């Protein structure tokens, strides 16, 4: 009896493998298709896991009294943002695009085939990434509810419309940037720059945190409460990026190795670039800057991850690391208070990486037409992302208060907005939350 059960169990477990083997003998393409499905499913999971990285980086970089607020923003913008993208965004991005400006079908999409369904899921993960970039930049003073509404607008309108320009359309009706020959393999501009510029628009509307810039012009640093979180978050993002860029793979997986290698080299380059710049300017090797440099390197190679020679991926990553540190200083000079450096990492490095693939396209470097298309794409992203987010957040500011009061800022948003404390053992502010 025992042998019979064992035999049946083995037969049941072996059945899919046998079926696959039979299918592979009959239709080898089917096996490749299954591998494609599996790979995209893994990429979806990896991109979702990046949210944990964002959560740790952003949560660690704020003061302990605001940890719950920023973590909750990360959670909810994934939830509500992806719903918005599914309801409206996907249609605007990938629906029939006769004008080249906006998709007009595929709203609230449901597909019967695995390929399209996985593509929808993968794109939903991308949309969530675009939204979550903003949560760190505006941390410690942006009220929770308006933020969620803003994130909904980003994922359902701002991001997909730009996405339709760069990636949308099919056949002869392509998005206008795509028609121009604009290249952005995995979303350096479409996802990261748009997220960064949206954050910039929101920051211009709400202003810096209390005391960040003194009236005399001094800059007061506001260090995060847990740098180990930041480092761990950086590693999780690095890990997840293999899925973020990995989705740009060919159907026959012929460029998978190149994509993963370039992703890794971009991260390493970012670390080296940030280290070199910090060392050269004698500022000390700041961990936060080095983690951000790594992320900047990853963003930088994202646009051309499938079309870069590995050496150039490293160089682009190195410059990305430098861009992160240098642009942070420029923003500080303009009194833009980005709490986590998101605009530098995603906005500026996304732009840099997109311009770089125009120059260093494998086998056809410095093609003037391509470089012009890249410049147009980068400028269009800046104008669209910054402009629309500024308008949306300005309008929201008229109907609801975006910025919390200085009293709430002093008490921290955890207790003021959520009546919850991230680290109840450390905080002495047990006060009424509704004041």
């Amino acid at each position, binding site marked *: 009896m025992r042998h019979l059960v064992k035999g049946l169990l083995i037969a049941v477990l072996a059945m899919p493998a046998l079926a696959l083997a039979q299918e592979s003998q009959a239709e080898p393409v089917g096996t490749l298709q299954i591998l494609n499905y599996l790979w995209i499913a893994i990429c979806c999971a990896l991109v979702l896991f990046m949210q944990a990285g964002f959560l740790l980086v952003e949560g660690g970089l704020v003061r302990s009294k605001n940890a719950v607020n920023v973590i909750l923003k990360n959670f909810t913008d994934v939830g509500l943002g992806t719903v918005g993208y599914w309801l409206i965004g996907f249609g605007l991005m990938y629906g029939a695009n006769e004008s080249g400006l906006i998709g007009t079908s595929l709203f609230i999409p449901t597909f019967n085939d695995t390929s399209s369904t996985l593509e929808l899921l993968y794109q939903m993960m991308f949309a969530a990434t675009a939204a979550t970039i903003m949560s760190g930049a505006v941390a410690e003073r942006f009220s929770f509810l308006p933020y969620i509404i803003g994130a909904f607008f980003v994922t359902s309108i701002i991001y997909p419309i730009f996405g339709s320009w760069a990636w949308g359309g099919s056949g002869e009706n392509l998005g206008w940037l795509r028609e121009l020959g604009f290249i952005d393999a995995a979303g350096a501009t479409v996802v990261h720059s748009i997220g960064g510029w949206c954050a910039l628009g929101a920051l211009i509307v709400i202003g810096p*945190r209390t005391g960040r810039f003194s009236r005399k012009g001094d800059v007061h640093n506001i260090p995060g409460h847990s740098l180990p979180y930041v480092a761990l978050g950086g590693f999780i993002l690095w890990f997840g990026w293999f899925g973020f860029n990995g989705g740009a793979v060919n159907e026959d997986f012929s460029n998978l190795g190149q994509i993963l290698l370039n992703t890794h080299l971009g991260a390493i380059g970012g670390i080296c670039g940030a280290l070199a710049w910090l060392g050269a300017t004698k500022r000390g090797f700041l961990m936060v800057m080095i983690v951000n440099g790594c992320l900047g390197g990853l963003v930088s190679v994202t646009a051309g991850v499938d079309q870069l020679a590995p050496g150039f991926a490293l160089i682009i990553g190195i410059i990305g690391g430098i861009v992160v540190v240098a642009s942070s200083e420029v923003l500080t000079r303009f009194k833009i208070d980005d709490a986590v450096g998101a605009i530098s990492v995603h906005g500026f490095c996304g732009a840099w990486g997109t311009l770089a693939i125009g120059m260093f396209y494998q086998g056809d470097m410095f093609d003037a037409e391509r470089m012009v298309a890249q410049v147009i794409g980068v400028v269009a992203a800046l104008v669209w992302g910054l402009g629309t987010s500024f308008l949306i957040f300005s309008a929201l500011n008229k109907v609801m208060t975006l910025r919390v009061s200085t009293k709430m800022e002093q008490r921290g948003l955890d207790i003021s907005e959520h009546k919850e404390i991230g680290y109840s053992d450390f905080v002495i502010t047990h006060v009424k939350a509704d004041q």
Partner: protein
Amino acid sequence: MSNTSQLNQRIVYAGLVRTNIDRSALKSAFEHWNKSNSEAPIDIFEVVDKVVGYLGLGVPEKKALTLGLHTASSELYEDLKPVPEFILGDLTADTASAAPQASAAAPQQAAHLSITARYLQAVSLQIKRNDPSTHKELVSAVADEGLLRSLSREVSAWANDNLNAINLGASVSVEQCQELAHEFYVMVCDFIGPVESDIIINNVISDLAKSSEAREFSPQQLL
């Protein structure tokens, strides 16, 4: 100062000397502890916790401090070394400027007035200790811009007194006190940044929470 609190000072000084920490650390730890010095006999474990937490001392220093305090607490006042002038000098100056007005006013004042006055003074004093030049700028800013409009007279007098003791009239409400404390916080943030402000304010609030008035009005309500 009562005999007991003077004895406490000698015991704590003797304990601190055993830890072999440098003069400035010894002085600042002593000052930190002395804020909670009272007429009650000292609780050795409380002193150890306070000093170790404040200075971040290691295990050997903690042991030495505990041993030193135990030894000293069994000795007579006359047998203990007096606390040197370099430590007591500043303390008497600080308390001379701060304590009399607060303590004299305390019996007539409601607890929220006394706590607010002590809170504002302690925050100002802490900034002065850390960076006298910033404190001067803060004084000018309070004098020039004022804080809570409804208390402009009191605030102006406070600025003229170099942000030492503020005199709040009996009619000043709890809400006004809270508003005044908050507006001062926003101004302090502008000068020393929000992180340092939070540290100073949390320390002051912790210290004030041990005072007798805190039973009637919790200083945390000023946050």
